[in-house]
């Protein structure tokens, strides 16, 4: 017991997480922990539950079973407002119907620090500018958010999350819809955040090579094949123990987790994605090339 406490002391720790949407089991018995200050990538095919996992960790969705600890506190016991001070979330490409200025968008990140009837004050504006400067985008603080490029918009959303002054940052496919230059720029910025501000980063990625290049650890997920099975929970109530055992899915989501070079092997990638890949090494860097 004591050992366990030390283990989940700092960082994020996920224990026995299970979730099903309607009758589809999406996450089954997910366990992992993330050390404070590290950059962790979540990888896996479409529909394997990456986004769902992020949504559970930041409290958007409730799991059926299991617990998420952040700095050894159960997130279900943390109020929304408190959680927003610890954890920032950058969702997949965001669109706005109103042409708010970039500064106004970033200011909304100050929400957890602003009392009910108040508006952002001088301090909040100062904070927002600090974040914008750190991200190198202070020069378009007054530009309408709807008129900047996709890459710039992603930087703004990260800036907004940083304005929350979080210790943890969750990013859902931060590189989607970006061109090559912007992808690298955004990922480098994220790494920089973790290194200079000791922010723990958990992000989902589609490109395995980016996981190799930009993360300290990789969590490789698979899609649960028998997704339409009724979930474990219901069976454990209804059916006899033996039957429940048979019907319980043996599969778990996590194929492997750990340092990228250990996780990103051809065998494990095949297990997760079902395709054959080759791993090449070049100047000490690894590269994954699919076999066509």
């Amino acid at each position, binding site marked *: 017991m004591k050992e366990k406490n030390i283990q989940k002391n700092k960082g994020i720790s996920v224990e026995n997480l299970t979730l099903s949407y309607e009758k589809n089991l999406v996450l089954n018995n997910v366990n992992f922990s993330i050390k404070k200050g590290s950059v962790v990538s979540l990888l896996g095919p479409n529909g394997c539950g990456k986004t769902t996992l992020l949504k559970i960790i930041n409290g958007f969705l409730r799991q059926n079973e299991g617990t998420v600890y952040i700095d050894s506190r159960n997130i279900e016991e943390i109020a929304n407002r408190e959680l*927003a001070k610890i954890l920032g979330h950058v969702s997949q490409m965001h669109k706005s119907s109103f*042409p708010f200025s970039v500064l106004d968008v970033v200011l909304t990140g100050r929400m957890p620090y602003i009392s009910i009837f108040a508006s952002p004050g001088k301090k909040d504006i100062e904070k927002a500018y600090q974040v914008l400067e750190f991200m190198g985008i202070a020069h378009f603080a007054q530009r309408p958010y709807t008129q900047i490029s996709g890459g710039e918009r992603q930087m703004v959303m990260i800036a907004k999350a940083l304005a929350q002054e979080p210790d943890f940052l969750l990013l859902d496919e931060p590189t989607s819809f970006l061109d090559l230059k912007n992808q690298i720029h955004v990922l480098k910025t994220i790494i920089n955040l973790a290194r200079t501000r000791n922010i723990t980063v958990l992000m989902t990625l589609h490109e395995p090579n980016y996981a190799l290049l930009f993360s300290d650890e990789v969590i490789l997920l698979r899609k649960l094949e028998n997704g339409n099975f009724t979930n474990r929970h219901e069976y454990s109530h209804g059916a006899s123990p033996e039957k429940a055992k048979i019907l319980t899915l043996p599969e778990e989501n996590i194929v492997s987790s750990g340092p990228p070079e250990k996780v990103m092997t051809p065998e494990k990638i095949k297990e997760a994605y079902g395709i054959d890949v080759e791993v090449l090494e070049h100047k000490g860097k690894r590269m994954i090339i699919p076999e066509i």
Partner: protein
Amino acid sequence: MKLPENEKNHGYPACRPGIPFYLKWKKPAFIVFLLLPVPVFFVSIFLGTYPLPPLDLLKVLLSHITAYEYSYPPIYDTVIFNSRFPRVLIAMMVGSALSISGATFQGIFRNPLVSPYILGLSSGAAFGAALSIAVIPELPAQIGAFIFSLIALGFSYTMARVGRQTSTVALILSGVITSSVFGALLSIIQYITDEKAVQSIVYWTMGCLHTSCWSKFYDAFPLILTGCLIIYLLRWKLNVLALGEEEAKAVGMNVELYKAVFITAASLAASAAVAVAGIIGLLGLIVPHILRMIFGPDHRKIIPLSITFGAAFLALVDDIARSTFGFEIPVGIITTLLGAPFFLYLLRTTKIGGWE
């Protein structure tokens, strides 16, 4: 969050916090728009169907405020203080209420094209008014309208609420359903009642201010004031909500709670306005839009400006309604006729018609 000194400016000295909150020319414009109701009020009390020479009116006012002695027929007092004053004030109050609630609904639904009537408020009110005109004459029309507009809103809101969530699309659909249900109920009343009642129902639904009196003002004022005050105090939170519900949740906002508070406050103000003035169309759309075009979408500016500019705008439209022709035109007809081409123009020139 402390930054090393050398990182601090990144070579952008010009945009440090000294930055004007509103760009330079916008600050005077902001103040002008805030103060607009004052001159509009004075212009408006000079207009009306009763032939009262402006100079005489000025003299009457002076004799009331200062020691200036002036003898005038007592009817002047009635015209000025019991007819024009309440009428202009009611026009202003209703203008504020509809504009602020339009701006609020647009923020919550993240769509610049929704109106305060989106949740079925107007059809509920029309039905309530019809009910009191044709069926229960003991019930004053404005109270019937007020009660049924709230019933309609409550109906839409509960219908859209699944579990602990109320999605935007569900709210809009349930608003459509509610509107048609109350529209049908209104038709039943119009079908079975006599011609005279139908006439007054139609007149009521067109939205007019010519029956304005102090008691109507006092009835609606506290409700509209409360609604406006709540929205004004929470105005920045509308920015957070307008960026999307998921974004709002991510920064720790209790989205359902804020949405319920905003909908309640905006509905209270709009219902009270509709109860005293009938259905004045498109105002809640035009005013916030003009303001957004000039001042941008920030609700910290749009909300206070909606109150003042909305007031000035409806008072001016009402001036047109009662003084351009020899007879009174219901003000709702003018706002709709002005608003329709404006609405069309917006649809054509902006790409903001769709929901996200």
